[in-house]
């Protein structure tokens, strides 16, 4: 079972300098599933997510122990190209962060750095990505304007399009809707459901209903430890740990 996982961590611990932020986390993410990570603020959700595309590498003094596997291969091995890992494991951030470029150039960025020059091919891929991110209709007439003129929700979908354009296999999302209003949030949720068929999605959220609505699996983190992981409806209806239940029902100390 665990060998067929798209992405997996084994006894993974993580340190910011001396302080341990994640402890002994073993979890597997199946292909074409949506997994929600939930847990109280500061429990290590973002930290965990960022170990999966080695984003923490850019923070000085951090250290990973244990294994993180993508298709069964460790992504922290010495001969692995971190640039390639980040292409295969895409990321969408909490706050929309479009580049100060035109929408077209923003989405085309990842393709261009990979050497794609052909204008029509670029255009096709950008269009496909924007369609996949359900934002095409809203921006198709303003591809040459800055993405910063869009609303927050639109910006976030452009950022998702940008991440999709480089054809990642896994998509990490760190509270992608927390800075958005309910309608924009609903659009992002619909989008995530639509993307499920093609991508392995791991999403951090503080919103229990959201986790229940969009995810197949849910993992509960508490103080850097993985408390419980399982089918979303199981976690929300019959959690096996008292802590999880307290957290989900809002009875948290």
């Amino acid at each position, binding site marked *: 079972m665990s060998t067929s996982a798209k992405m997996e961590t084994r006894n993974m611990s993580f340190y910011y300098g001396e302080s341990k932020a994640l402890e002994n986390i073993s979890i597997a993410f199946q292909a074409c599933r949506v997994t929600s990570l939930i847990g109280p603020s500061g429990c290590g959700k973002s930290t965990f997510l960022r170990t999966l595309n080695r984003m923490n590498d850019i923070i000085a003094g951090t250290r990973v122990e244990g294994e993180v596997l993508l298709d069964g291969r460790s992504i922290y091995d010495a001969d692995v*190209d971190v*640039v*390639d890992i980040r292409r295969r494991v895409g990321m969408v951030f909490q706050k929309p962060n479009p580049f100060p470029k035109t929408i077209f150039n923003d989405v085309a960025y990842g393709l261009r*750095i*990979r*050497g794609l020059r052909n204008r029509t091919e670029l255009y096709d891929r950008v269009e496909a990505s924007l369609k996949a991110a359900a934002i095409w209709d809203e921006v198709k007439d303003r591809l040459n304007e800055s993405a910063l003129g869009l609303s927050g929700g639109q910006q976030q979908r452009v950022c998702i399009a940008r991440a999709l354009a480089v054809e990642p296999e896994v998509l990490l999302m760190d509270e992608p809707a927390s800075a958005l209003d309910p309608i924009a949030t609903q659009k992002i949720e619909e989008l995530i459901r639509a993307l499920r068929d093609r991508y392995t999605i791991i999403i951090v959220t503080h919103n229990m209903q959201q986790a229940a609505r969009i995810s197949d699996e849910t993992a509960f983190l508490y103080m850097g430890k993985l408390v419980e992981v399982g089918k979303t409806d199981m976690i929300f209806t019959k959690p096996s740990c008292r802590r999880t239940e307290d957290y989900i029902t809002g009875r948290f100390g």
Partner: protein
Amino acid sequence: MERRKKRKLIEAGAFLIVRSAALVIVLSLAVVVGFILFHGASAVNWTFLTQPPREAMTAGGIFPAILGTLYLTAGAILVAFPAGVASAVYLSEYAREGRLVRIVRLAINNLAGVPSVVFGLFGLALFVVFFKFGSSILSGSLTLGLLILPVIIGASEEALKAVPRTYREASLALGATRWQMIHRVVLPAAFPGILTATILGIGRAAGETAPIMFTAAAFYTARLPTSIFDEVMALPYHIYVLATAGTHIEQTRPLQYATALVLIALVLAVNLVAILLRARMRRRRMS
């Protein structure tokens, strides 16, 4: 695969260039300072520092120039410190961002960009000629003071801005007036930063040549100045004079190096103190 290798290679090449740029800068500093240290060190001694020049400035020391630079710098600080700190206090504590403040800032920025030789001309026209102070410590100090005014305003304002808002709010909440808050709480808290600003101003004033050429500096004075209306010798001008004028340029090279060494030792020491002071402040703010 091919493409990935190429990207790696480009990155390695680019980083090499970027690193070399940084290296070139550090090296230039080291080479300039090193050369002057190497050639000047042997000529610097107690006599050199405490005696006046002799034999048409081909022998002896540079005491009058050191003294002159000290006078001019002290004078400049006396002018620029109160005005600079007061301006900074207004900008950071009283002013509302608006038209007037924008113009004041614009003036400060432009003042900072005025070439030093233009300050020299201005000092000549205003202090030497118009106010009839003549070429004197007074004229030179005033000119240098105006030159370093923007430096002191800028750095002091930064120091004031770094004082946490909570200090101000706590003070006002206790019923202090704005002025009480400023001089009891804000200024003391900003003091190390303002001190740093002043030190930077000292370093700048001590090293400037062009502004004092027409306003204060003398080629050679037989006696030490006795009033602020006297001309003085000054270290930077002395270097210039020894290196470019006169008939013994080659013969006095060691003296030139030695004078340059004394000047950069003074300026670098002053700046180093400022840098260390600031680093310490930053560290304390962190903890």
